[in-house]
């Protein structure tokens, strides 16, 4: 079983690497979105490997089902075609800047993670969804309610912003 887990982990790693590189370098935004969806599904697989099936389910439901559809709407409504804004060559200076921005957190975080490893468990505990629900309605009731207020404010604000511009034109 150990071998199987390692193989699955390597498989998900492969999908994450390929998908994320596609998501940030592809000239077509729709292809970039496909790469992002592959990454999201692979991260859900990682959650399953971590014995957190509820989080994996929520990842598929919220990200793959909700956020990616929103991004697709954004692509569609901004009329980003394959010959559009993102297709042209990126200037060399911008790529160098991007690599510099990538290197700083990569080096710092990787060094910290590798040199000061936390004492890790070998087997992840399996948390029942009932416990999550009890914690959400018990100790974490205020954040739970606040996040619904935040969601409502975001949705209402989005409708308001998009609608007023249309009326004002």
């Amino acid at each position, binding site marked *: 079983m150990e071998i199987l887990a390692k193989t699955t*982990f390597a498989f998900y790693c492969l999908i994450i690497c390929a998908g*994320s590189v596609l*998501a*940030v*370098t592809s000239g077509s*935004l729709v292809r*970039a979105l496909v790469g*992002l969806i592959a990454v*999201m599904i692979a*991260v859900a697989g*990682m959650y399953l490997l*971590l*014995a*957190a099936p*509820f*989080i994996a389910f*929520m990842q598929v439901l*919220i*990200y793959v089902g*909700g*956020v990616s559809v*929103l*991004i697709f709407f*954004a*692509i569609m*409504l*901004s009329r980003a075609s394959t010959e559009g*804004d*993102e297709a042209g060559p*990126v200037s060399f200076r911008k*790529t160098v*800047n*991007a690599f510099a*921005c*990538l290197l700083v*957190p990569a080096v710092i*975080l*990787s060094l910290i*993670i*590798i040199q000061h*490893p*936390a*004492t*890790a*468990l070998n087997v*992840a*505990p399996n*948390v029942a969804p009932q416990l*999550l629900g009890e*914690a959400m309605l018990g100790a974490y009731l205020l954040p739970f309610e606040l*996040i619904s207020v*935040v969601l409502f404010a*975001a*949705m209402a*604000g*989005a409708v308001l*912003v*998009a609608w007023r*511009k*249309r009326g004002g034109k």
Partner: protein
Amino acid sequence: MTDLTLFQLVGVFLFCVGIFGLVRRKTLVGMFIALELMINGAGLSIVAAAQLTQGDAVTGQLAALFVMGLAAAEATLMLAIILVVVKRFKHSKADGISQLRG
């Protein structure tokens, strides 16, 4: 190298690729896709730390759920902002948006 380290390195990889895309992309939608990569990396790191250390697993998983909720709220707002920007400027290039007027 422990399992926790491996999972966290994957999280760092996602975060860094997200930063790379955020700086390199030209349009708002492309930057948004890179931003989602970064959030996914952070979520993976949180859940790995919750499940594979002595810390409370319930709290960690709830934190990941809250991150997902905030990401959903942020996605709707980004959609509205991109909509308004495209309507006003006829494109969504980040460099060309320099006018801020009500």
